[in-house]
């Protein structure tokens, strides 16, 4: 597979983003565990005064893991995979190296500023788009830098045909650019009125329209950050790590173009029984169900890539991470459409089943795939074998247990809550006051938080393993072809 005189790929930027992935992973997940415990033990809201309440921290958790942990993971893999599938080294272009480094530093400044402003409560309230206008513009700058990096590298490529991963990286770039710009359309109030806080703004859209745009964005931020780039990763790393060719090119075509077309319609399922037009709601429902096809298409393509090679699951924890990631992707993309069916949504919407659904996707699919990708990259970037297979195995089981605890407790909590909200007594009156439906959930909240804690501990094991790989592991003479070398 590899040419004799392989190119000398430059991983400077990939390494920087790897550190960022780990750093923001710890911050984002730690805050997640804190707010999960706050729901079970409300006294924990008072650890940091005004800045420590659940409501202040929640946007920090979501933005921290989405735009901190995951985005830097996506960038790290891009700066690794991009060179390899295009058969061109970053070192060949001074310009692209400068852009890459600038991209990293602008990114770090934006994310760190975002952390500070969210702590201060500077927010537009739109989910996953809470940042105020100056930061929105800064995000556009960093996105354009990434775009230059992608298309610059594409411009000087030796491999003329774009590999499947490239389709997905390009789609990530374009999709997020469009969604981000339209959802963040806002008017800075200071520029119009000349008074008040300079960074405050007001949305260009009102009410129902704002909700439509927001969930067109919100749902597809999931598509283009949690799904599309992760598929880019798995299409590269699973075949590479296992040494197996991708099962079917045609299936990858169908899944890619299908996903691109179908995903954007599904945003309406966040707004079922709201005041958006009924036909938009039904379209959201229907397209969510259709979405099973391209989603499972990719997942099945990956699983069948392992056909006849299942023995590798026993020998190689990285393959195990990636196969389970695919499986969680299938679970999550079946669960989503089920929740998008109107009668189920009537029960599930506004309940804890929704965060449950989000987290089997993010922890199982996104988190596992990102960590597996970085594990695969480490021996190639640092020319050392992975520090400990045993630790990796323990991490795998600990985190898997954590995920199962998380989603099982949230399924039960969500359905319990939904059923209690609508329960009536023999006279047709509501059977429960709202607080009854809260206190009954506390055991599940505790269980969920503990599941999250297990996952966080697993992430610390990942961090330790990566750190040791970078600094103390045995050096390797030549780059491994497929399975990553690891010490027992």
């Amino acid at each position, binding site marked *: 597979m590899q040419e004799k005189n392989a190119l000398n790929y430059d991983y400077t930027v990939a390494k920087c983003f790897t550190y960022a992935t780990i750093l923001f992973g710890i911050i984002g997940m730690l805050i997640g565990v804190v707010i999960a415990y706050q729901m079970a033990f409300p006294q924990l809201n008072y650890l940091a005064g005004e800045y420590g309440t659940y409501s202040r921290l929640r946007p920090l958790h979501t933005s921290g893991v989405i735009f901190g942990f995951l985005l830097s993971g996506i960038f790290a893999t891009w700066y690794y995979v991009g060179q390899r599938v295009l058969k061109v080294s970053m070192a060949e272009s001074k310009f692209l190296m400068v852009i890459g480094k600038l991209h990293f530093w602008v990114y770090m400044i934006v994310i760190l500023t975002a952390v500070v402003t969210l702590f201060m409560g500077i927010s537009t309230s739109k989910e996953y788009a809470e940042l105020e206008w100056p930061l929105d513009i800064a995000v556009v700058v960093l996105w354009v830098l990434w775009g230059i990096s992608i298309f610059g590298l594409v411009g000087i490529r030796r491999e003329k045909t*774009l590999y499947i991963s490239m389709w997905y990286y390009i789609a990530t770039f374009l999709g997020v650019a469009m969604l981000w710009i339209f959802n963040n359309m806002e008017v800075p109030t200071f520029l119009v009125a000349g008074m008040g806080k300079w960074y405050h703004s007001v949305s260009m859209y009102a009410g129902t329209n704002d909700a439509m745009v927001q969930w067109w964005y919100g749902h597809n931020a999931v598509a283009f950050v949690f799904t599309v780039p992760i598929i880019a990763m798995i299409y590269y790393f699973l075949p590479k790590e296992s040494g197996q060719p991708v099962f079917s090119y045609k299936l990858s075509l169908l899944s890619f173009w299908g996903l691109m*077309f179908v995903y954007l319609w599904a945003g309406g399922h966040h707004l079922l029984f709201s005041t958006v037009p009924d036909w938009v709601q039904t379209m959201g429902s229907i397209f969510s169900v259709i979405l099973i096809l391209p989603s499972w298409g990719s997942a099945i393509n990956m699983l069948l890539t392992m056909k006849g090679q299942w023995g590798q699951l026993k020998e190689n924890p990285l393959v195990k991470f990636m196969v389970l990631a695919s499986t969680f992707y299938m679970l999550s993309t079946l669960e989503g459409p089920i929740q998008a069916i109107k009668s189920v949504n009537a029960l599930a919407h506004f309940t804890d089943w929704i965060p449950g659904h989000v987290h089997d996707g993010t922890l199982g699919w996104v988190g596992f795939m990102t960590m597996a990708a970085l594990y695969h990259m480490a021996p190639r970037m640092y020319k050392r074998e992975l520090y400990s297979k045993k630790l990796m195995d323990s991490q795998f089981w600990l985190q898997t247990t954590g995920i199962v605890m998380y989603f099982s407790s949230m399924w039960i909590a969500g359905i319990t809550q939904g059923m209690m909200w609508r329960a009536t007594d023999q006279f047709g009156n509501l059977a429960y006051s709202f607080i009854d439906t809260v206190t009954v959930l506390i055991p599940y909240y505790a269980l969920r938080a503990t599941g999250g804690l297990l996952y966080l501990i697993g992430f610390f094991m990942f961090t330790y393993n990566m750190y040791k790989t970078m600094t103390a592991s045995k050096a390797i003479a030549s780059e491994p072809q497929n399975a990553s070398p690891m010490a027992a």
Partner: protein
Amino acid sequence: MFHWLERNPFFFAVGVFLVVAYAGVVTILPDFMESARPVAGTKPYTVLELAGRQIYIKDSCNACHSQLVRPFKSETDRYGMYSLSGEYAYDRPFLWGSKRTGPDLMRVGNYRTSDWHEYHMAKPTDVVPGSIMPAYKHMFSNNADIETAYAEAYTVKTVFNVPYDKPDMPKLGTFDQAKKEAFDAAAVIVADMKSTEVKEAFKRGEIKEIVALIAYLNSLK
């Protein structure tokens, strides 16, 4: 065709963009104007209410509270009339939320009072035993930002023609006029409250966050 696209990145990117953008154009644009039309009786927020709304956003109340009553009997029994699109015509941004860790607040102004909110925000479990909501004591010491609220009202009036200063609609006027209105409205709420901290501050000419927030919550009907 696909093989050709995979060798021509520019056209590949254009193709992806068109396929991705299609759904948004079809679902969002057709009803845009109609969805923006207010239902009769809906009024823009006063400056004090807007200041409260900004605090609601600052502290992410929408992370746990929805403002959307769905058309089910169990919801209309609990929260009142189901939501109509036109009721949100002046909500920038919308605050429907996506999770009900706490109850819906779409019409909380119909069944809660200023002093209830005061006690509840200071110590939720005093009013609702078993509540897991945090107390928001800092709202009793931080000042509401009337200037930014005025700037927001002025902006939506100028840019989006929100009908301030029209017959039967809230007055905005100049900043000094708006400020006086805000203080008059705040005085009514402060009179209903027990907190000496808030009352003393009001005498000094400060409106605490809690006062503006209560004004906003009372306006939700």
